C-alpha cells in the first residue's frame, strides 16, 4: 500500500523506542568499566513504488554500533602495562626506601657504636667492662647486618608469593579472554554477523586487566576473536584456547621463583623476556633493586669482617695469645645450576676484600679443561684453563679466587655470588672478652746502659697485605723488600727452586730457573711475576697465616764501633744480621715486625725487640682497629665501611626517586590514553540528556503521525457512514 502513514508512524515509534533504549543503556552504564557508548544507526526503509514514483516507507534501525577506536584502545593497553610496571616497581622500591629512611634503623648507628666500643677498649685496654661493651656492640652490629638482610630476604619471599599470584591472575584472565573469544564468535555467527558490542567491551576490559599485569600484544582475527601474545611472542590466548604460565624454581637459586611457559610437558623459563605490568615491575625490582641492595650490604659485611679480622690477627689478647678471628667471615656463595650433570666442584675464597665488586659471576665449563668466567654486571668474560690440575686454584678475579675440582660436564655452570648472602652469614667468632687483641704482640726497649741518644719507636707488626717485592740480584740470590713500609726484609738470600720463602705471615715458593733482575711481587697476598722477567721462574700462590711465626722471638740490635752499622742477633732472624748500615729513621724489619731507630746511638748501644709479655695495658692494636673505621678499605680503596653503606642508601634513594619520576610520567601517559579513549567512547550524561530530549520529541512526532493516520481513517469512516 502506497503512503502507509500508520506503518511509517509505527516504524518511527519502534526505531525511536530502540534509540531511547540505547540512550538509556548508555546512561545506566555510565559507570561501567570499559563500557563504550553505543549509537543507533538509522536508515530509511526501502521505498515503495507507487506508479508515479517511489514513496518512503519509514525508518529502520540498521545497527547498534559502539563508538570505539582500535588505536586508542591499544594505546590504553600499552600505557597501562608500562604504568603498571613502573607503579609497582615504585611501590616495592619505596619499601626499601622506607627501610633506609629512619636514621636510627640503618647500619650507621650500629657501625658507630661498634667502633665507639673499639675506642673504649683502646682507652682502657685492660678493662674487662670496656671489652664486654665492645663484644655486645659487635654482636649488635652483626645482628643489624642480619636483620637488614632478613628484610631483604623477606621481600624476596613476598615477591615469590606476588609472582605466583600474578601468574594465577594472568592464567585466569587468559581463560576469561579465551571464553570471551568463544562467546563473541558464537554470537556473531548466530546474528548474521552483527557484533555483540557489550561482549567486545567486556573482552577489552579483560585485556586491559591483563595489561595491568603484563605487557601484551593483541592480534585480531577475522572471526572476531583476538590472539594475545606476551614476552617474545609466546601466545597466551589463541582463539578459544588459553595457554597457562607457571612458576618454576630458578635454576641456580631454589629460593626464588621464575615464570615458566608450558611447552609440551616441560616449562621453559621466560622470566628474562617478560616486561610490563605488575609482573614486569616485580621482576625488574628483584633483579635491579633488591638484589643490588642485598649485595651492597653484603659487601660491607664481607669487607668489614675480613679487614677487621686481618688487623685483629696481628694483635695480642689479654691472655697473651695472638689475636684470633673476631668476626666469622661469610663464605662466598657458589651455586651449581640444577641441571648440571657433572660432578665438578667449585669453591670461591676471598683474597682481597677491597677489590670485591657487587657483581655475580657465572663459571661455565667448555670442555677440555677450559672454563669461562663471566662477570654478569658487564658481561666481560675471562678464560680459565686448569691444564688438568685438580683441584686447580685460579688467579684472583675481582678480589676472589676459585678452587676448581675436575668432573664438570660440558656446559655445566655455576653461579658465584661473592656478596649476595654475606650480610646474612656474617657472625661473631669471638666470645671471650679477654680474647680481644688490643695489644701488639711485640715491644721494644732500649738498654738502660745505652750511652748514645738513639731512640727506638714502638714498632709495628707487618701486615701480610703489605706489598712485598722479591728481586733477583743474580740467578741464585735475591733481595726482599717490603714496599709498604720501605724496609728491607732480607738481602742476598740464596735461591733454591721450590723452597719455602716466608715473610710477614705468608709463605710462597718460587720455582724454575730465574734470571738476574727478575722480580716477583706479593701484594695483598696475591702473587705475581713481573711481566718483564727474563727467566722462567714461577711464583706459587701465598699461603697466609699471619703474623710471622717468629714475631715474638727476642731480637737484639747492637751498634758496632763506630756506630754507623749494627748487628742483629736472635734465635730466628732474616738476613743479613751483621754490619747493617745505620740510617736514622730507616725502617728495620725482621721476623714480621718493623721498627725505627732514630737519633745518634753510641757504639755498643743495644735495643731489644721481644714478646709483649704481660702487656695488658698496651692498646696499639686497638688503635689500629679503631682507625679502620675511617680507612678507605673497600671498593678498591675508595670507600670506608660507612661510605660503602652510604652507596647502598644513595642507590636505593636514587632508584626510588627515578622510579617515582618514571611512574609519574607513565601515569600521565596512561591518563592521557584513557582520556583520549574516554573522550571518544565514554558516556557524557549531558549529551545523553540532549539525545533523550531529541529522541523523545521524535518519538512524540512519530506518535503524532499515527494520530494523524487515525484522524485520516476516522474522516474516511465518517464519510462512508454518511
Amino acid at each position, binding site marked *: 500500500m502506497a503512503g502507509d502513514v500508520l506503518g511509517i508512524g509505527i516504524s518511527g515509534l519502534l526505531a525511536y523506542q530502540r534509540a531511547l533504549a540505547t540512550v538509556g543503556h548508555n546512561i545506566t552504564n555510565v*559507570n561501567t568499566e570499559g563500557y563504550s557508548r553505543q549509537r543507533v544507526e538509522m536508515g530509511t526503509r526501502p521505498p515503495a513504488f507507487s506508479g508515479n514514483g517511489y514513496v518512503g516507507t519509514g525508518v529502520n534501525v540498521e545497527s547498534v554500533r559502539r563508538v570505539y577506536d582500535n588505536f586508542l584502545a591499544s594505546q590504553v593497553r600499552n600505557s597501562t602495562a608500562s604504568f603498571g610496571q613502573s607503579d609497582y616497581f615504585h611501590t616495592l*622500591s619505596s619499601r626499601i*626506601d*622506607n627501610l*633506609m*629512611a629512619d*636514621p636510627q634503623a*640503618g647500619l*650507621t648507628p650500629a*657501625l*658507630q657504636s661498634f667502633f*665507639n666500643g673499639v*675506642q673504649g677498649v683502646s*682507652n682502657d685496654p*685492660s678493662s674487662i667492662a670496656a671489652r664486654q661493651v665492645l663484644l655486645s656492640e659487635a654482636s649488635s652490629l652483626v645482628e643489624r647486618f642480619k636483620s637488614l638482610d632478613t628484610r631483604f630476604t623477606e621481600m624476596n619471599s613476598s615477591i615469590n608469593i606476588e609472582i605466583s599470584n600474578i601468574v594465577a591472575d594472568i592464567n585466569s584472565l587468559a581463560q576469561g579472554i579465551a571464553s570471551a573469544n568463544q562467546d563473541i564468535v558464537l554470537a556473531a555467527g548466530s546474528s548474521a554477523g552483527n557484533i555483540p558490542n557489550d561482549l567486545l567491551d567486556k573482552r577489552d576490559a579483560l585485556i586491559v586487566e591483563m595489561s595491568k599485569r603484563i605487557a601484551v600484544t593483541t592480534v585480531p582475527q577475522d572471526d572476531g576473536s583476538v590472539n594475545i601474545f606476551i614476552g617474545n611472542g609466546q601466545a597466551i590466548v589463541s582463539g578459544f584456547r588459553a595457554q597457562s604460565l607457571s612458576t618454576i624454581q630458578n635454576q641456580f637459586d631454589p629460593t626464588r621463583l621464575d615464570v615458566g611457559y608450558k611447552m609440551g610437558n616441560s616449562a621453559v623459563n621466560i622470566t628474562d623476556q617478560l616486561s610490563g605490568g605488575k609482573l614486569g615491575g616485580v621482576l625488574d625490582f628483584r633483579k635491579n633493586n633488591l638484589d643490588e641492595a642485598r649485595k651492597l650490604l653484603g659487601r660491607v659485611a664481607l669487607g668489614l669482617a675480613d679487614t677487621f679480622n686481618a688487623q685483629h690477627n696481628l694483635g695480642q689478647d689479654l691472655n697473651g695469645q695472638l689475636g684470633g678471628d673476631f668476626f666469622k667471615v661469610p663464605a662466598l656463595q657458589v651455586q651449581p645450576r640444577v641441571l648440571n650433570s657433572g660432578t665438578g666442584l667449585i669453591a670461591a675464597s676471598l683474597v682481597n676484600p677491597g677489590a670485591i665488586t657487587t657483581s655475580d659471576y657465572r663459571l661455565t665449563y667448555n670442555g677440555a679443561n677450559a672454563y669461562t668466567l663471566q662477570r654478569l654486571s658487564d658481561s666481560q668474560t675471562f678464560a680459565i684453563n686448569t691444564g688438568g690440575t685438580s683441584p686447580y686454584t685460579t688467579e684472583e678475579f675481582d678480589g676472589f679466587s676459585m678452587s676448581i675440582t675436575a668432573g664438570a660436564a660440558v656446559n655445566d655452570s655455576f653461579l658465584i655470588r661473592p656478596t649476595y648472602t654475606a650480610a646474612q652469614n656474617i657472625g661473631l667468632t669471638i666470645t671471650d672478652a679477654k680474647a680481644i687483641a688490643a*695489644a701488639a704482640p711485640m*715491644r721494644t*726497649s732500649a738498654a*738502660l*746502659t745505652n750511652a748514645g741518644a738513639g731512640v727506638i719507636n*714502638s714498632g709495628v707488626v707487618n701486615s701480610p697485605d703489605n706489598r712485598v717485592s722479591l728481586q733477583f740480584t743474580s740467578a741464585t740470590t735475591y733481595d726482599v723488600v717490603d714496599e709498604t713500609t720501605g724496609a728491607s726484609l732480607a738481602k742476598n738470600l740464596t735461591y733454591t727452586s721450590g723452597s719455602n720463602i716466608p715473610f710477614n705471615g705468608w709463605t710462597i715458593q718460587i720455582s724454575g730457573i730465574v734470571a738476574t733482575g727478575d722480580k716477583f711481587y706479593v701484594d695483598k697476598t696475591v702473587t705475581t711475576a713481573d711481566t718483564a722477567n727474563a727467566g722462567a721462574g714461577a711464583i706459587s700462590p701465598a699461603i697466609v697465616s699471619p703474623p710471622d711465626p717468629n714475631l715474638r722471638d727476642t731480637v737484639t740490635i747492637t751498634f758496632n764501633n763506630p756506630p754507623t752499622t749494627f748487628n742483629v742477633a736472635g734465635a730466628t732472624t732474616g738476613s743479613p744480621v751483621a754490619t747493617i748500615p745505620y740510617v736514622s729513621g730507616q725502617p728495620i724489619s725482621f721476623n714480621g715486625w718493623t721498627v725505627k731507630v732514630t737519633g745518634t746511638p753510641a757504639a755498643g748501644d743495644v735495643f731489644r725487640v721481644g714478646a*709483649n*709479655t*704481660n*702487656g*695488658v*695495658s*698496651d*692498646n*696499639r692494636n686497638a*688503635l689500629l682497629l*679503631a*682507625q679502620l*673505621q*675511617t680507612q678507605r678499605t673497600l671498593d678498591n680503596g675508595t670507600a670506608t665501611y*660507612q*661510605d660503602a*653503606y*652510604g652507596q647502598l*642508601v*644513595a642507590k*636505593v*634513594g*636514587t632508584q*626510588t*626517586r627515578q622510579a*617515582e619520576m618514571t611512574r609519574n610520567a607513565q601515569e600521565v601517559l596512561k*591518563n592521557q590514553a584513557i*582520556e583520549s579513549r*574516554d*573522550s*571518544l*567512547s*565514554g*558516556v*557524557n*550524561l*549531558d549529551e545523553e*540528556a540532549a539525545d*533523550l530530549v531529541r529522541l523523545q520529541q521524535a518519538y512524540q512526532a512519530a506518535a503524532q503521525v499515527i494520530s494523524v493516520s487515525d484522524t485520516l481513517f476516522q474522516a474516511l469512516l465518517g464519510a462512508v457512514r454518511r
Partner: protein
Amino acid sequence: MRISTNQLQQQGINSMLEQQGKLSKTQLQVATGRRILTPADDPAAASQVLGLTQQKEVIGQYQANADAARARLSLEESALVGVGDLLQRVRELAVQANNAPLSNSDRASIAQEIRQRLDELLSLSNTKDSNNEYLFAGYQGLTQAFTPNAAGSFDYSGDEGQRYLQIGSNRQVAVGDSGTSVFRAIRNGNGTFTTQENVANTGTGIINPGTVSGTFVPDTYTLAFIQVLPTDPITYTATGVTSGLVASGNYTSGSSISFNGVQASVTGTPANGDNFSVTPSANQDIFTTVQNFARGLETAIGTPASQAHFNNTMNRTLINLDRSLDNVIDIRARVGSRLNAVDAQKDFNDSFKLQLQETLSNLQDLDYAEAVSRLNLQITGLQAAQQSFVKIQGLSLFNFLR
C-alpha cells in the same frame, strides 16, 4: 573536545588526590622538621647525611677519648707533682745535712725521714689509675712497676711502652710515661760524667761534680794524688784507661783540674794514694739516689776522712737529686704540653663538630619559612580543587529536565 562524564569526575578527583599527596608530604616535613623524609627525596644528600653523621659521632668519640686522656694525664701530673715535692724536700734535707755540723744521731733522724720519703716515692711510682692499672709500668699495667728487692735496691717490672689515645682524626696523644723514663733513665753526675771518691781514701779531699769544658772524651779516668813525704808538695795525675796520662801537676785545694773535656776541682787535703774516678754518666734511678743519701747519713762519722766521704756522698746526692728533679720537671712539662694539646684538640673538635652540625642541618633540616608558605599555598590549591569539583559536579542537563 568531547569529554565523558567519568572523565570530568576522574579529573577532579585526580587533581584533589595530587594536591592531598603534596599537602600530606609538606605536613609531614613540617611535623618532623626534616627536609629528607626518605632517601628518595634527595639520594645524594641522604647518603651525605649518613657520612656526616658518622663523622660527627666519630668526633664525639674523640672528645670522649680526649676526656679519658685528660683524666689520665692529670693523674700522672699529680703523681709527678708528688714526686717533685718529695724530691724538693729530700734536697732540702741534703743541703741541711751537708752544711750544718750535725751529730750522728741528728743525721740518723734525717736518715729516718729519708727512708719514709723513699717509701712514699715507692708508692708514688706505683700509682694506679682508675682502672687499677699501674701508671708507670708501661704496657704491663697489671704488674707492679717497682718492687724493693733483697739487695735493698728497686726492681722495675714494667717496660718502655707508652699508650697513645686517638683524640683527633690525625692526632694521637701519649697518655703516660714509662717508669723507665720518669724514674730510671736519669744520667747521674753532671749528665756527661760523674766523679766519685775511692772508698779507701784516707785524706780529706772532696771532689765536686765538675763541668764539661769542650768535648768530653768518654773514658774511665782516675785522678790520683801523690805525696811521698809529708813535706813534699801534693801532686796529681789523671789517667784514662784508654787515653793514658792526660794531666798532671801540683795540687792546690779548690783549683780546677782539666783534661779531655773534664773540669773538676778537689778541695781539702787528699792523702798519698787517694784517688777519684771520673766516668761517663750512666743511668741511675731516683730510688738509688735517695737510697745512697740515706746510707750516707746512716754511716757514722768519726774521723776527718769519714767526714770527707760523707761530704763527697752529699755532693753526688745533690747533683743526682738535681738531675732527678730536672727529669721530673721535664716530664711534667711534657705532660703539661700534652694536656694543652688535648685542650686545643678538644676546642678544635668542638668547632669542627659545630661546623658539621651546621652542614648537616643545611642538608637535612627543613626551612620552616619556605615549608609553611608552601603548606599554605597547597591548602589553597586543595580548597580550590574541592570547590571547583563540587560546582562542576552540580552541573547537569538533567537538572533542567523536570
